[in-house]
């Protein structure tokens, strides 16, 4: 473990500031790692090698700047973040050659903070999926076992970090898309509170559920990334005006006396034996350290998958209406008329899962079905959030599985969308409630040898304490990467 690319983000940061290593050296090491690992892992849709080398050289010329929290750090971006002048595809044929005219808010912040943007990572098309298999541009492999999926939709981001291509990356989480791939690849992943991070310039899947967040190999690393990502943005009317906090300064919490609520509806679901075993050990370790585990009934979680797949697809169906081949993106060749231009462009350039979700969402909003589906789902959403608030009144954090399965084989659920949707049960209720959640590695499954994760769920805007608890967990469950 002597290579520069093995450094965690926090380690690399210190060495950069101490001038022990230069931004160019680290960037070159990571680019080399990308070049060697990509043929197998295929985490990246675009590698910005030239640009990264230039940025790093420019940073080195000026010297380290402690005022820029991410100075010289190479990072990956899920290819859902608009990057000015750099192709942004959302892993869709529709946007295969789309070059945004502007940077997402978060991208501007990363640049200001001195980050070196390395690559645009793979995802399920428009972030719709849990395995990255729905990318229009090919599979990404799990670095732990290349016959397995890396999770999704931020599968490229998680695989890239797990393959040591970059010390950290940015994903988005609409129903678990940061936490689940982080868990399946053995990374740390944070879904912040809804409104903690600006969504401006991030291609929208479901506006009331989407939230951008970091993935890395340590809790402190995601804290550094969050410090830069979080905070107000007057271009996003759903972004809180609260200033970002100094998350890296979070003090490790104490496990002794920590009250952890266990949502029964999730723990009683069928867990893969590997997952069950890792969790059992984890519970024992937590209790041994003095944590108090409190089973919590959250009865409305049983409706959460149904509510989510109505609300998320309804919003998606109209968020994706702008992809019509008129102002950008792929336009069908020689359509007979305007209607065909729309229909052909969309039918040719959007993948089957995206089309399925657009249709489901369109159906849920259409005349005659709105009340029974969309409206009812929104009412259930309130019940689910109330369940969370009540549960969080009785404990410090909730503790839940991230995925009932470790990383699975490619193609395993290819013909079974319903089962895949059900797999999201562990993660998506948190998005319905808009809460922050931290996905942490808990150990390796004894049979599969694959990572298994746990997630801590906190109160709105309580990221500081959530990260503190995460640091305590990290001491109890050593990092896998």
């Amino acid at each position, binding site marked *: 473990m002597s290579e520069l690319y093995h450094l965690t983000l926090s380690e690399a940061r210190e060495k950069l500031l101490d001038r022990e290593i230069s931004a160019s050296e680290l960037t070159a090491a990571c680019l080399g790692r990308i070049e060697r690992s990509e043929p197998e892992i295929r985490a990246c849709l675009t590698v910005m090698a030239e640009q990264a080398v230039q940025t790093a050289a420019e940073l080195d010329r000026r010297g380290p700047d402690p005022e820029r929290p991410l100075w010289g750090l190479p990072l990956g971006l899920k290819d859902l973040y608009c990057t*000015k002048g750099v192709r942004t595809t959302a892993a869709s044929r529709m946007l295969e050659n*789309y*070059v*945004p*005219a*502007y940077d997402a808010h978060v991208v501007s912040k990363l640049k200001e903070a001195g980050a070196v943007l390395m690559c645009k990572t793979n995802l399920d098309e428009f972030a719709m999926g849990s395995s990255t298999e729905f990318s229009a541009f090919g599979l990404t492999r799990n670095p732990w076992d290349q016959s397995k999926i890396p999770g999704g939709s931020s599968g490229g981001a998680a695989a890239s970090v797990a393959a040591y291509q970059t010390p950290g990356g940015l994903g988005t989480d609409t129903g678990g898309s940061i936490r689940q791939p982080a868990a399946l690849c053995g990374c740390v992943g944070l879904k912040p509170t*809804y*409104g903690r991070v600006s969504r401006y310039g991030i291609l929208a899947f479901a506006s*009331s559920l989407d939230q951008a967040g970091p993935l890395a190999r340590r809790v402190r690393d995601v804290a550094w990334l969050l410090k830069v990502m979080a905070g107000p943005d007057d271009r996003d*009317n*759903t972004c*809180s*005006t*609260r200033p970002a906090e100094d998350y890296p300064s979070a003090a490790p919490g104490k496990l002794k006396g920590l009250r952890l609520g266990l949502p029964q509806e999730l723990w009683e679901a069928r867990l893969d034996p590997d997952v069950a075993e890792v969790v059992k050990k984890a519970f024992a370790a937590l209790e041994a350290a003095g944590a108090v585990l409190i089973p919590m009934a959250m009865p409305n979680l*049983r*409706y959460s998958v*149904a509510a989510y*797949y*109505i609300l998320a697809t309804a919003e998606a*169906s109209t968020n994706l*209406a702008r992809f*019509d*081949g*008129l102002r*950008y*993106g*792929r*336009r069908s060749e020689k359509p007979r*008329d*305007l*209607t065909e*231009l729309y*229909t*052909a462009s*969309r*039918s040719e350039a959007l993948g089957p899962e995206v089309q*399925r979700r*657009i*249709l489901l969402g369109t*159906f849920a909003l*259409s005349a005659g*079905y709105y009340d*029974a*589906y969309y*409206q*009812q789902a*929104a*009412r*259930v*959403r*309130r*019940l689910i*959030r109330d369940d969370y608030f009540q549960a969080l009144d009785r404990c410090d954090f909730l503790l839940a599985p991230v995925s009932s399965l470790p990383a699975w084989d490619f193609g395993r659920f290819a013909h079974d*969308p*319903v089962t895949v*949707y059900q797999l999201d049960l562990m993660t998506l209720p948190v998005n*319905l409630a*808009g*809460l922050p959640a931290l996905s942490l590695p808990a150990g390796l499954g004894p049979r599969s040898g694959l990572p298994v994760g746990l997630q801590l769920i906190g109160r709105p*805007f309580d990221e500081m304490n959530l990260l503190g608890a995460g640091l305590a967990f990290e001491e109890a469950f050593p990092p896998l990467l």
Partner: protein
Amino acid sequence: MPIDLKTVRHTAELARLDPGHGLSPDEAEAALAKLADELAGIVAHIDILSEAETSGVEPLYSPLIEAPAPREDRPADCAHIEEILRAAPDRVGNFYVVPKII
């Protein structure tokens, strides 16, 4: 709630999608039927929603807790109009071009 072929066809039209695009009529019909099956399967699971007791519950459309005030009415010039227009599949001068609207 059943989701039949007619509903799927209507929904696809609303969404400007054609499940049978580029297929022969027979294949298109089969593709539509397959899609209807898939959607019916999904909707069957989603119908669990009707079991939830929600009378008197206000819908929650967004988990937003706090939001900024509206912005001031102060104009700002857009610095990247050309980059925006450059992405257009077809343009004449600064106009976007689409087939004639009937």
